[in-house]
């Protein structure tokens, strides 16, 4: 581990710009050294890389050590602030896309990989562009790593891991495309996040040619270094939950419920539409059969038959769209809510631990000189967590609003198109079969 060496600057976790005001300045407090805790004392050296952020530094490819997260903040935090301001001002400097799914057939297994393309001007990246291939496993690994290393933040959800075999064809075009969109969304959300986008694992994910090597190395390092932060999952009872988190918890409960209901309704509608389609497919041809019997009526009968046939096509498009575009996003948000609730629980536990320790001090008065440091460490943890989470929650709410706005407008659009397609076809076919004066008035 190159503590003072010329390595890629670790992307240290930082709180969102707003919540910093609530925190005591990291360099101001007397116990800042202690707060840092552990081996990862931020050193002024870290300033260096920024000023020599040139490409002539030879960097080991994918050899960056696993980053750990302590709630400590470093002096580079201030610099981070400025960068964040830029991001908020809508100048993005990191673009990620997931595209081009390909099937790989190996002796042991068959799987799909996706091309992940990155374009960036950030100094944390050696090159302005990257293009590598990843499979679902890799995304899953990334998400786990993010959860581990950024426990105070909300990590976006992945599309469902397990697919019931036989029910869904995991290699069908529709399934792969749906998954690709979800993976793309996943990476974009991370890329847009002021803290998560600077996470080391994310960087490696986007850039490393051999991710597996890194994964193994990371594991080894972890076992050496050990988790620097382990949140005690003890059953600490919470004295009082801050209002905003209590409200968020309740909100998420109801939100997930409502989404679940909408999911069921949407599925039901699709089911009814499919059954309607089945009947229509029998209905249209009967008019044609009748037309075969008639002379003068043949044309209008064929006209109606064609109309119905056209309705079938349009309906098929609608049900496909809803299945592929609408339902997955709903489910994604339900997963998102679940993971958010978990983060809220973790926060509660951190707070609980702090409160318990605080109580313990009150009882053991003679241990006062030593304990405060530990207690203050806990307090910091709580306050960092609260700050990070609050910022993320606000981001999430905003994104959620935009996402649903887009999703529901999309749903309305698809239905409009469904009717438009029919109307246009009906008008054109009817005008050949029916008196023009009647039809063109519509």
């Amino acid at each position, binding site marked *: 581990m190159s503590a003072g060496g010329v390595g890629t600057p670790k992307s240290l976790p930082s709180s969102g710009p707003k919540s910093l005001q609530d925190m005591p300045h990291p360099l101001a407090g007397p116990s800042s050294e202690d707060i840092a805790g552990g081996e990862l004392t931020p050193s002024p050296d870290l300033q260096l890389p920024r000023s020599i952020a040139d490409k002539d530094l030879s960097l080991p490819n994918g050899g960056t050590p696993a980053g750990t997260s302590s709630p400590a903040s470093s002096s580079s935090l201030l610099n981070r602030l400025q960068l964040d301001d830029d991001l908020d001002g809508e100048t993005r400097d990191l673009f990620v896309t997931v595209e081009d799914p390909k099937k790989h057939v190996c002796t042991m297994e068959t799987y799909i990989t996706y091309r992940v393309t990155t374009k960036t001007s950030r100094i944390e990246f050696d090159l302005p562009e990257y293009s590598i291939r990843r499979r679902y496993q890799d995304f899953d690994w990334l998400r786990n790593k993010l959860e581990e290393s950024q426990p105070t933040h909300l990590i976006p959800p992945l599309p469902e891991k397990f697919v019931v075999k036989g029910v869904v064809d995991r290699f069908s075009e529709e399934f792969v495309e749906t998954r690709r969109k979800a993976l793309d969304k996943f990476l974009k959300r991370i890329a847009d996040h002021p803290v998560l986008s600077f996470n080391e694992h994310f960087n490696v994910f986007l850039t490393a040619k051999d991710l597996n090597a890194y994964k193994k190395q990371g594991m080894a390092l972890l076992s050496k270094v050990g988790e620097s932060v382990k949140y005690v999952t003890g059953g600490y009872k919470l004295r009082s939950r801050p209002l905003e988190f209590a409200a968020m918890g309740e*909100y998420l409960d*109801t*939100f997930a419920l*409502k989404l679940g*209901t*909408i999911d069921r*309704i949407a599925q*039901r*509608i699709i089911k*009814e*539409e499919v*059954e*309607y389609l089945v*009947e*229509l497919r*029998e*209905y249209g041809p*009967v*008019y044609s*059969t*009748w037309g075969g*019997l*008639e002379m*003068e*009526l043949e044309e*209008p*009968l064929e*006209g*109606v038959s064609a*109309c119905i046939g056209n*309705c079938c096509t349009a309906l098929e498009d609608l049900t496909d769209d809803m299945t592929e575009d609408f339902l997955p996003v709903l489910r994604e948000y339900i997963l998102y809510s679940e993971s958010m609730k978990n983060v809220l629980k973790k926060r509660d536990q951190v707070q609980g631990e702090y409160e318990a320790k605080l109580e313990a001090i009150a009882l053991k008065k003679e241990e006062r000189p030593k304990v405060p440091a530990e207690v203050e460490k806990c307090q910091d943890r709580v306050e960092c967590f609260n700050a990070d989470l609050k910022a993320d929650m606000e981001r999430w709410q905003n994104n959620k*609003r935009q996402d*649903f*706005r887009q999703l*529901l*407008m999309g749903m*309305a*659009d698809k*239905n*409009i198109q*469904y*009717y*438009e397609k*029919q*109307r246009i076809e*009906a*008008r054109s076919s*009817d005008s050949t079969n*029916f*008196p023009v004066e*009647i*039809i063109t008035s*519509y």
Partner: protein
Amino acid sequence: MEQGAPEQQPGPLGESLGGLDPDPVAAGDVESVGIGSGPEVRLAGSGDFMTTEGNFWSKKIEISVSEAEKRTGRNAMNMQETYTAYLIETRSVEPSDGQSVLTDSLWRRYSEFELLRNYLLVFYPHIVVPPLPEKRAEFVWHKLSADNMDPDFVERRRIGLENFLLRVASHSVLSEDKIFYLFLTQENNWKETVNETGFQLKADSRLKALNATFRVKNPDKRFTELKHYGDELQSVISHLLRVRARVADRLYGVYKVHGNYGRVFSEWSAIEKEMGDGLQSAGHHMDVYAASIDDILEEEEHYADQLKEYLFYAEALRAVCRKHELMQYDLEMAAQDLASKKQQCEELATGTVRTFSLKGMTSKLFGQETPEQREARIKVLEEQISEGEEQLKCKNLEGREFVKAAWADIERFKEQKNHDLKEALISYAVMQISMCKKGIQVWTNAKECFSKM
């Protein structure tokens, strides 16, 4: 009997119908047709019931079945029953100013309509007699009731009965029938009057008709083709109506489930701040969407009723064809009978036996008959042959008249059918387009609400 030119009544759709060309010879002979040739055919509104010259309607009339009422009464078995009665109002229209004056008003129930139609079928077998609306609700989908007392069913039946009367009234031949006239004007004892015509006795037996279908050798090809068309038409419209009912059912389901969005959006909006209003108002549009299907399907039901009328018309068409087959078969049988009698006569006269005969065999067994006996037999046969020839001539004439008259009405019917169905199909297409427009409207409104989220 002088036949005044039948007044052309406008049909239900305002078209004028081609009338029949009554053959004066047949008109006079109708009553005197002998045995086995079926009931007297009223080729033109002649016959023993004419009281006035020409038709019964001195002025143009308007008929409406304006009301339906639930009634209870006692049936033939003296058991209590509930039935619906329909009010029939007849108005005559002043040619000068178009004002209509109520001339008759009476109540009839469905069974009386049936009686009228059965009567018409017997006395006008060459006419494609307009059908009645269905006796029991068929082709129903889940929302429609199969109950005859259901108000929607009664309402649709009321319209169907009115349509029936209008069709009869606008038919150049049928409109002149006295029983029809009395149906509209004589409330009491009309049933007895109909039964007095003895039409039930004159009706061809089913078995006879079926027999004829299989055994007739030279039916008019046009009728054979027409019957085939009638079969096919019945089959295809039945199929169509069955599938349409299922389609309606499914479409109903699709629309109604959307109503659930209304509720859940409303509940969801309660926990949202900025998104709340947009969701709530979008939910309202989802409710509107779900409710819109009721009117849409009600309109479609009328379209289905129009198709149903022609489904039943197909049966009337087939009835005319069957009548032709029966007459033709009768003719063939009579001709065959005549031919065999002639042959018998010849054999007796010449003494040669070419064909097997019981008489021949018995005479071989029991001895030849005397010349006197043979003479007597020849004489009887000659009389029978003479009668048979007369009958055959009549039957031939009847047959030709029937074909001519029937084909004329069939041509009229074809035009009517093409006109009516074309209109029905057009209105159906228009309904579909209108449904699309409504759909676009609702979803556009919803989209706008979503955009404000």
